[in-house]
């Protein structure tokens, strides 16, 4: 009889099981649980205030680096292997040069903004994370760990670059060093927002408005206060993400993508999820760039050198004419993540055609390619009419074009310093660069709607993308015919 006690408890459990099990089985399903993007967010190290750790004063910037390396012994070694330091990509075999292995970067190649960093170290080293790189001394300079400029990324205040990558004379090194922390948007933005010679010049989707972004400017940085390294996940100073302009091919594993955190088909609406086979997230979620600060969409070097009055947004004597635009609608192209072509110094051009400095790879036939938004920058830049290749003038520094306004002299100096042969005759030719538009992401309420692309008011040029017509009516590339 006494043994009945556990028995009735067992019975109670049995009865509850009989009630619970079918209930759980038949419990109505809630709307399909989407993956939780937050679970993929990297955690950042807890901030250690260095105010009392850093002992100044420092006589040279290299002394600061030495002090850093005392506690962070691997930091310089790690970062010196990254392209932030080397300013070049890994060597890559170039098909249009019979498989020649070349590297691509600011170290050795040109763009269609300020054209060349090479030979212009005085100004351009503002954005190199090292000290004292002068023309011709990269071999020695880049080998020395003490030249790593920790402060440039880690000093939250009181730091600025002067010439040849050295700190500006006004900088109090010890004071700046005491502020070190994990880099925020402003630190990364110093170079990435101001690339090309000023705020918003290059990218269109990256400019100083993102330092204190409003919610409407970028959902990640504005609404949720993301910093760059939340997506550009960083380990041992290797920052995830590759710049399309300075690479030929990019391994997807090295690139930042929306799907790091978001599902491949994250929409509640099936019709939208079908789109993700052929349309990049950015295409709908970055409807326009340069939302607050304008970006440069074209640049004509040929008109430079005139004393017609400077205006930051239209004409500078040293740079020529340019056009800035705000709220720019991207150019849409198929894109598989790599370039189809990247202009290399010495590549012959057809001056009657517009030369692509970089041309994104992908086509409607490429199943891995998606329609992707780009900022297209059109330049009119100098080329050698004898050699039929693009020229890289010496602009900054004493005797540079910005002092002499003598193109011939700038190209002759370049021949001396960079070894780029100059025939003595130059002209101007048009070039394109394409920059992926991937920041200034908008939430669903502000993403593109159907009719923005579809219907004949749509912004897509379906024929140019390779479709017979609007895929809404003609079917997409994965539709069964």
């Amino acid at each position, binding site marked *: 009889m006494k043994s009945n006690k556990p028995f*009735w408890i067992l*019975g109670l459990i049995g*009865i509850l099981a009989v*009630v619970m099990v079918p209930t759980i089985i*038949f419990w*109505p399903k809630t709307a399909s649980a989407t993956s939780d993007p937050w679970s993929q967010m990297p955690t950042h190290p807890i901030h250690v205030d260095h105010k009392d750790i850093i002992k100044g004063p420092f006589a040279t910037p290299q002394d600061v680096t030495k002090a850093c390396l005392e506690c962070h012994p691997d930091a310089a070694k790690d970062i010196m292997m990254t392209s932030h330091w080397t300013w070049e990509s890994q060597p890559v075999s170039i098909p249009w040069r019979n498989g020649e292995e070349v590297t691509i970067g600011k170290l050795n190649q040109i763009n269609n903004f300020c054209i060349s960093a090479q030979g212009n170290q005085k100004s351009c080293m503002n954005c190199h994370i090292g000290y004292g790189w002068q023309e011709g001394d990269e071999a020695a300079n880049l080998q020395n760990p003490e030249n790593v400029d920790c402060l440039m990324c880690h000093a939250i205040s009181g730091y600025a670059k002067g010439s040849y990558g050295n700190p500006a004379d006004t900088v109090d090194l010890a004071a700046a060093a005491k502020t070190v922390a994990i880099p925020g948007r402003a630190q990364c933005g110093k170079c990435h927002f101001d690339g090309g010679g000023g705020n918003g010049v290059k990218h269109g989707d990256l400019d100083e408005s993102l330092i204190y972004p409003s919610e409407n400017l970028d959902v990640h940085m504005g609404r949720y206060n993301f910093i760059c390294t939340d997506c550009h996940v960083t380990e041992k100073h290797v920052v995830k993400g590759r710049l399309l302009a300075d690479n030929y091919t990019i391994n997807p594993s090295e690139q930042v993508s929306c799907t790091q955190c978001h599902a491949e088909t994250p929409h509640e609406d099936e019709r939208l999820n079908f789109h993700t086979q052929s349309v990049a997230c950015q295409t709908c979620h970055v409807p326009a760039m340069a939302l607050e600060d304008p970006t440069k969409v074209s640049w004509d070097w040929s008109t430079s050198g005139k004393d017609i009055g400077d205006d930051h947004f239209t004409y500078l004597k040293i740079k020529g004419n340019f056009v800035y635009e705000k709220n720019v609608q991207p150019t849409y192209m198929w894109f598989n993540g790599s370039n189809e072509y990247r202009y290399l110094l010495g590549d012959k051009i057809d001056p009657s055609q517009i030369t692509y400095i970089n041309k994104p790879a992908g086509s409607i036939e490429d199943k891995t390619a998606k329609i992707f938004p780009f900022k297209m920058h059109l330049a009119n830049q100098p080329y050698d009419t004898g050699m039929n290749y693009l020229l890289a003038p010496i602009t900054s520094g004493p005797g540079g074009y910005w002092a002499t306004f003598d193109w011939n002299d700038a190209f002759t100096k370049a021949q001396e310093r960079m070894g780029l042969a100059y025939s003595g005759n130059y002209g101007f030719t048009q070039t394109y660069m394409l920059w992926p538009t991937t920041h200034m992401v908008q939430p669903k309420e502000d993403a593109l709607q159907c*009719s923005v692309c579809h219907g004949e*008011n749509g912004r897509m040029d379906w024929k140019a993308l390779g479709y017979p017509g609007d895929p809404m009516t003609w079917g997409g590339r994965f539709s069964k015919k």
Partner: protein
Amino acid sequence: MKTTKFFLIVLATLLIGLAAAWGINQALARGNSAPAATVSPIHPTFALRDESGENVLVSAKPISTMKTCGKCHDAEFIASHSFHADLGLSSYGQGGSNAWDTSNGLFGKFDPLTGRYLSQVGDERIDLTTAEWLKLYGWRVPGGGPSLTSRQGKPLASLNPSASDPETSILNPLTGNTQAWDWAQSGVMEMDCFLCHFTTPNNTARTAEIQSGQFAWANTATLEGTGIVTKSGNSYSFNTSAFDESGNLKPEFILVQDPANANCAQCHGTVHTDPANPLTVTACDTTQPQTAATGQLIAPERISESGLNISGKANLGRSWDIHAERELKCTDCHYALNNPAHYQEALENKPAHLTYDPRRLDIGEYLTTPDHNFARGQSAQFTVAPELKGTMRRCDSCHNAQTAHTDWLPYTERHMAVLACETCHIPQLYAPAIESYDWTVIKTDGSAQTACRGIEGQSTITNLVTGYKPVLMQRKNIDGKTLLAPYNLVTTWFWIYDDAKGNTRPVRQVDLQAAYLENGQYNAGILATFDADKNGQLSDTELVIDTAAKQDAVTAKLTALGLKNPRIYGQVQPYSINHNVTRGEWVVSDCETCHTASSRVSAPIQLAANIPGGVLPEFVKDSNVAGSGQLVKNADGSLSYQPMPANDNIYVFGQTRINWIDWLGALAFVGTILGVGTHGTLRYIAALRHPKHAVKTQKVQMYDAYERFWHWLQTISIVLLLFTGLVIHRPDIFGVFSFRYIVTFHNVLAAILVINAALSLFWHMVSGQIRQYIPRPRGFFDDAIVQAKFYIDGIFKHQPHPFEKTKDSKLNPLQQATYFGLLNVLLPLQIVTGALMWGVQKVPAITNLLGGLPVLAPFHSLVAWLFGAFIVAHVYLTTTGATPLEAMRGMVTGWEELEVHGKE
């Protein structure tokens, strides 16, 4: 093969062209900027011809569309197969909801918003003659039908002008008399192909011609602005530069297209596509009829991006209309009925084994003779073209509602069977809509007192636009089924009178003006009665018939004008709402919206802020909804319509209450509690007075393990069923519980209960224990009386139980009787009513055979109350054992201390 390819290319070009034409026109049609015309990539050039077929370049006469387009297209067929042309002419004389209605269409059916009606031959007073009707409505009359042909079927131009015939005369507002109208001189209006098929029709110029009575030039005027014609004096000249040397239009002037949304919008309501130019509308603007009457407007734009000052706009990330957002156009659903691309055969017209009949018109045949009767639904503009009702694709022609709902919507089939898709998918209209028109008074500018719902004020830009929730009405479909569907109700009041022949007619506006006004101002008599603040002006609050004095004053004025028996009449016109559909999170998808006391299903809608003359309006008779609810006069003087789902035999869980059932049930339940409470108290007092002397007890194994298992399983099931049932019945009280999960839980519990009951019945039968439950017929009543006496007397005196409880005879006679009723009546009833209520989704026929939910559900509630009462009594009676908790312990452990009954 080659021809197929060629055909496809041609078709593709055609489609692209049409889409291009539509898209671009869309963008430009409604903006203030000059519209840009799109040249048709496929339509051949043609000559513009006059009514004799001669090129207008030669004759300089108005364009005849019938001759121009009829050169290639079967214009005769088109004009005769179009309710847009007919507008009720073919049903003239059939009458309608009102005594003065003469047809089912715009030509003859009274429109209380304009307050004008088409006069018939023999009317004592003439309001709209045919010519004046055309002038008034011409802006939305595409021509043909009554603008071409008389009510007797003769060409209007062949009629002799006569001041006494409403077809050949017009009212002179100065004299109040009719004068002859010469159709041969004014010309007539052929169906205007350009209005719907040109990318840039000029309806403004066309309307100007119509209003000036120059009907012949109306269609030509439609082309003004295209560069083809130029107005010169009273006629139009043709620009030779638009024509080639053979007299055909140059290709760049061929602006022909498939009708775009903007073409439809000219007459039907607001369409907006230009993303650069945020949408704005004028509240309740009757030049946008469907937008004014319902608040529906067609735009892909997100509401948050529109230019309207909408309440909570920033969070309204939905588009105005999902179908517009997804690039559908009007003609995708309202297609020409013989369009081979869209046409679908009615189910009843095709053999059961055939799902698709490929024998269709080829495209050439279709382009020659396109049927201009367009597919239509069955609610909007209810009376028009009844033979075409339901020809349109319905939601379920394109959407598979089952797959979209079954994974989350409980009772999907049931919801689909009683709700129109629009009910949940158009939960709210965001633009204002007309609420009421009061023509019992008139403003000095000749307009009525009007009220607009969904806006606080008049301007959609500076006043707050709140939008409104449509009222849900029972819509009777053509297949005889009834669905709950959203409507706007527009209420109008106006004066009617009896003429000398005893016919009832609305009081004409000229007469109303004569009664109220003198030289454009209110006359002295009206001012004396209406002008409360004596400032010589009538404010909106003064200009309303809210006293008998005012009503008498106007009645006297009208009577003085010779109108017999003038009286106020009010009517409610339901306007069905089918556009502005939304999806996803914007849709009604939480059960509590409807399944609660303040249910959406019974949410009232205001009809008017006041009731002119205290006259309650009637629902129009010719609509597919019945006003089965109540008209409610509110304390503030306003009038509302309160839907009464119960009147329509609708039972909505959580909303519907049969009060007497709940009262009765509650009474039984509370009565039982009071009864056992009293009994228990008395027992307690008795026990205090006469402490119980020790009784000899012995421990007996009373219940087997299985008995205890089924008993407690049943206990838990029933208690939880009662509780979940209560939540379903009164979800407003138990807001913390999700209705949806509770319903599922209730159903699962019910299944457990039924299975448990069946298994235990089987066990009782096999083990023979069932005999315990069967009262012995012999001596049962005597025994029952003995047991009853014990409960009312012996128990207080610690007398032993009259019947010994043993393992084989657990139940006393009263228990036997109770269980007999419980198990044979209440439980089966509850199971059957519950199962049928569940079965309403699977086998509605059986459920409906037994009265449907309105009968079953209250019954189920009542029985549930009785079960509740039983449990109270049952639990109480377990305390009558050897000790109060002994019986309970017995049921838990199986062993019970029982009093030993001596036979001393």
